[in-house]
């Protein structure tokens, strides 16, 4: 069956058993692959109520039917598990080259279960799979561990996925890193790897991936590549500036969260913008597997070259911490990459701590590092390092802003949804984006439905960002389509140029099948509802579909969105209705029957 290897790898780290199993092709079709299929398998194999660090929890590394194909930007894979940060389903996405390599080794996905009694790593050379000792790599930073593992593999073409010390220490903000700099960043997936004593997965594959219909593939790819080349964002905007060029747009729109969302306009944003990054620190542009967009950026500071910082990272450490020192932001980003930390949650947690410190909630004598003052370059760099190392008060920060603020009795100061820190857009000035934050199945996240695209960037059409009208419809449509793209194994950035029918055509040509746009979007809706059911079974109830009270009650104090709050109470019932859920936000039996996921 083209598009799929039809093989999955199951590794039990408790027993050392390694099994190669056939993939159920009916299920693969029903849940597409990647995010969708892995969510189904996780839902079947674990009780969603378990402790995420229980050895029974699975961590699944899943490609999609288009991962590694000739489709543009097909380097994506998903890490799916139960999140130790949010208690929800976690599905963190990453690019680079690791996903396609796994596919060429002959596996659609890897299910890791159990727990090793000592540090280990998984070595995959086509069909030869071994669990190897990782004592000498434990404690190593991401770049050093990657280099050492490549040396042991004796194959420079091998691809390395690894956790840093943050994951080893079960830091709830820990990411999974691959190809040194690419991150499956969110939801603490790195800590689940750490809980299983699994340091890395090294993959080398030499197989080929033939499309179902070569002629149709050539034809559809010619068409989609043309669209990507003709689209201003994918052919000029992202290649020229990378994601960091968003800094000034979002700031000038007045939705650039500043000093832990106390403001939404950062006076000196331009000093920490994509324009200045390109002028002073950019070394080169980089692309993931098969990507014509090439939005990646390598920057250099203190003689060290590293990837990023991306837009979200720039925001988390600059405006959100009140810092306008770009060099410090790059250094903080580098610590996150080396220790394996989610840059959004790490920066946002420091911002929360800064507000608590300035309000006298965290006392100076409690902390063993630089004063947590807004605007402090020293604080963002040193506290990032200490969080990564889980050292002193840094270990407390590394549990995320919600647990920090809750411990001090001020959970409302955590700018998070379902305990996952919000990203770089203030929803008070983008109502659809706020609804998407509140309803995202993994919590405060921008890439489950990027409403900023129509509400700010004008793509595919310009919506009034303050209006509530029609936003529930847009949010559902974006969430369902995004679930499809994530499950196919393609990069979400292709959607600036492509529509649902383009994904349908690529899937039919490369993987074979008779998908229509409707059946594909139905699959997206099926995946969304499956994730919702997982969360409900995990005890994350509809009451958690909310935003921090600051965003609902405190009008933005200054800037171009001054005076606005978010109107979630009006939008949420519309959204539940649009989804076919009951008034309490529970998917109805009829809806689940319709989607065939009873």
């Amino acid at each position, binding site marked *: 069956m083209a598009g799929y290897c039809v093989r999955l790898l199951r590794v039990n780290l408790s027993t050392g058993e390694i099994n190669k199993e056939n993939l159920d092709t009916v299920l693969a079709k029903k849940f597409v692959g990647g995010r969708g299929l892995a969510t189904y398998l996780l839902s079947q194999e674990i009780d969603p109520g378990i402790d995420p660090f229980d050895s029974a929890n699975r961590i699944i590394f899943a490609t999609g039917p288009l991962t590694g194909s000739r489709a543009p930007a097909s380097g994506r894979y998903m890490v799916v598990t139960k999140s130790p940060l949010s208690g929800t389903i976690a599905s963190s996405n990453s690019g680079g080259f690791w996903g396609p390599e796994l596919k060429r080794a002959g596996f659609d996905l890897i299910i890791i279960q159990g727990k090793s009694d000592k540090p280990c790593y998984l070595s995959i050379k086509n069909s030869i799979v071994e669990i190897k000792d990782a004592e000498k790599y434990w404690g190593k930073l991401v770049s050093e561990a990657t280099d050492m593992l490549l040396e042991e593999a004796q194959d420079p073409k091998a691809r390395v996925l690894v956790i840093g010390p943050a994951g080893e220490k079960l830091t709830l903000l820990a990411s999974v890193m691959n190809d040194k700099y690419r991150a499956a960043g969110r939801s603490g997936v790195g800590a689940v790897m750490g809980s299983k004593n699994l340091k890395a997965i090294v993959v080398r594959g030499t197989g080929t991936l033939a499309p179902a219909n070569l002629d149709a593939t050539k034809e559809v790819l010619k068409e989609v590549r043309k669209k990507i080349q003709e689209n*201003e*964002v*994918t052919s*000029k*905007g*992202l290649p*020229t*500036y*990378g*994601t*960091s*060029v*968003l800094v*000034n*747009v979002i700031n*000038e*729109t*007045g939705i650039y969260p500043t000093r832990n969302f106390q403001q939404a306009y950062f006076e000196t944003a*331009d000093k920490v913008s*994509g*324009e200045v990054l390109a002028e002073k620190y950019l070394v080169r542009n980089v692309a993931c597997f098969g990507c014509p967009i090439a*939005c990646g950026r390598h920057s250099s500071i203190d003689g060290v070259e590293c990837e990023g910082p*991306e*837009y*979200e990272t720039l925001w988390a450490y600059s405006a959100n911490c009140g810092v306008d020192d770009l060099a410090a932001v790059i250094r903080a980003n580098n610590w996150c990459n080396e220790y394996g930390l989610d840059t959004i949650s790490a920066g946002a947690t420091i911002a929360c701590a800064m507000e608590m410190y300035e309000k006298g909630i965290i006392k100076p004598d409690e902390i063993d590092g630089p004063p947590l003052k807004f605007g402090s370059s020293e604080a963002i760099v040193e506290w990032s390092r200490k969080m990564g190392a889980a050292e002193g008060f840094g270990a407390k920060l590394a549990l995320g802003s919600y647990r920090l603020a809750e411990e001090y009795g001020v959970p409302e100061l955590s700018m998070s949804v379902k305990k996952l820190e919000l990203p770089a857009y203030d929803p008070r000035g983008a109502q659809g984006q706020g609804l998407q934050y509140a309803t995202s199945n993994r919590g405060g996240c*921008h*890439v489950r439905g*990027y409403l*900023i*695209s129509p509400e*700010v*960037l*004008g*793509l595919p059409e*310009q919506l*009034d*960002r303050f209006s509530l009208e029609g936003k529930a419809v847009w949010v559902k449509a974006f969430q369902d389509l995004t679930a499809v793209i994530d499950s196919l194994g393609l990069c*979400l*950035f292709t959607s*600036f140029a492509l529509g649902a029918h383009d994904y349908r055509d690529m899937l039919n040509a490369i993987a074979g099948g008779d998908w229509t746009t409707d059946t594909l979007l139905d699959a997206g809706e099926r995946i969304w509802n499956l994730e919702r059911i997982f969360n409900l079974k995990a005890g994350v109830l509809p009451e958690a579909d909310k935003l921090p009270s600051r965003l609902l009650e405190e009008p933005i104090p200054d*800037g*171009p*969105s001054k005076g606005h709050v978010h109107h979630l109470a009006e939008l949420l019932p519309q959204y539940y209705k649009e989804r076919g859920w009951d008034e309490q936000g529970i998917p109805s039996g009829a809806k689940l029957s319709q989607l065939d996921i009873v």
Partner: protein
Amino acid sequence: MVVEIKLFATFRKGRFKTREMEFSDDSSVDALLKRLEIAQKEVGILLVNGRYASATDKLAPHDVVSIFPSLGGG
């Protein structure tokens, strides 16, 4: 009337970052773009006081006009 103009990304090359400019009272955004020699088709996002605007919109005294090429990210 005086209008504040902010340029971003490639529009800064050979021009400026921010500048105040004088326009006659009934001028539209279009006149501003012509003065700056920026073609409408090059403009991705055009904000007047932080709100989405089009070339035909009239300018008002002390407006802040921000001009970006097409861009995306996240």
